[in-house]
């Protein structure tokens, strides 16, 4: 009887796959990146505009990023306990990432380069949902924020610590860059006193 209940419970449950893709894979195979030879013009011609760009002392840095997030959920219908309209969903998220970092000198000549492709575990989640819903259970917001170019004009409209540090922000394009998903409790960001809490929301958070 128990086995039958388990079987019925599992067969009437729903699996969900939620995918989000940001940008296109970086095509490094068709380019010749040579330090001291390749210049900014060639890079922009081969790869187009970078995801992030910033001035550096004695040059500039460009980063190209690609992100493919997948969340897989197993849903178990709760009809065995009398909750016909609900399920519990267990989700696990992973992200396939690519990044190309290019550092140039003052003359626009390539000084350093690195390309990486990796898959990272972005966490697990659990949710109590209506059985016909397909909602995410894994928090992916640290990876899926809007590009800094969309927040550029709002730099002085944030909370006070954010505004006071806008001049040195890594979002300004003049003080370095950071990859998607970088914790906010790092480096220059610590001065902005940002929080990752769910309750505190605002322009600066």
């Amino acid at each position, binding site marked *: 009887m128990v086995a039958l209940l388990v079987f019925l419970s599992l067969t009437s449950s*729903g*699996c969900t796959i939620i*995918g989000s*893709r940001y940008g*296109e894979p970086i095509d490094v195979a068709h380019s010749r990146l040579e330090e001291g030879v390749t210049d900014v013009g060639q890079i922009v011609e081969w790869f*187009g505009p970078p995801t992030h760009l910033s001035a550096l002392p004695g040059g500039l840095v460009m980063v190209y990023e690609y992100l493919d997030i997948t969340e897989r959920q197993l849903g178990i219908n709760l009809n065995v306990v009398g909750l016909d309209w609900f399920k519990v969903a267990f989700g696990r998220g992973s992200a396939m990432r690519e990044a190309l970092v290019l550092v140039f000198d003052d003359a626009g000549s390539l000084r350093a380069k690195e390309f990486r492709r990796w898959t990272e575990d972005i966490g697990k989640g659990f949710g109590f949902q209506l059985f016909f819903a*397909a909602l995410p259970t894994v928090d992916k917001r640290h990876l899926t924020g*809007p590009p800094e170019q969309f927040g*550029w004009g709002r730099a002085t409209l944030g909370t006070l610590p954010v505004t006071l540090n806008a001049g040195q922000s890594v979002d300004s394009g003049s003080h370095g860059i950071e990859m998607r998903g970088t914790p906010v409790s790092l480096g220059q960001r610590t001065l902005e006193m940002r929080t990752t809490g769910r309750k505190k929301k605002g322009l600066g958070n």
Partner: protein
Amino acid sequence: MNKQLLPTLLLALTMTLPGCASFERNQGVENAWRDPSVAAPVIGQTTESDIIKALGPPSQVIGLGDQTVFYYLMEHREGKAGIFLIYNWVKEDTIYDRAIFFFDQNGVLREYGFSKEKIEPPR
């Protein structure tokens, strides 16, 4: 009795039949650099003024020492979803159409480039 039957039936059908959804959204500046009627930039000749007149305000202006960068970005997000109760899927793609222009101290174009991925401009 009949008044209640139809909404109940509709609700039952909504809840039990498979469903699908699709959505899309654009954000950012208009990608006029994809418009064939806009003159192609010429390195060493086109100026900051020409670019702003042709494409409008950039998404971001960056100071790179003795260079100025105009960065244009349009984001297109589209998604599809299938709800089949036993198996559900949601797929979302975000495409970035970008243009970048590097100018020298005199405001003359030094380098420029467009992203390989592009969004069809509005007609």
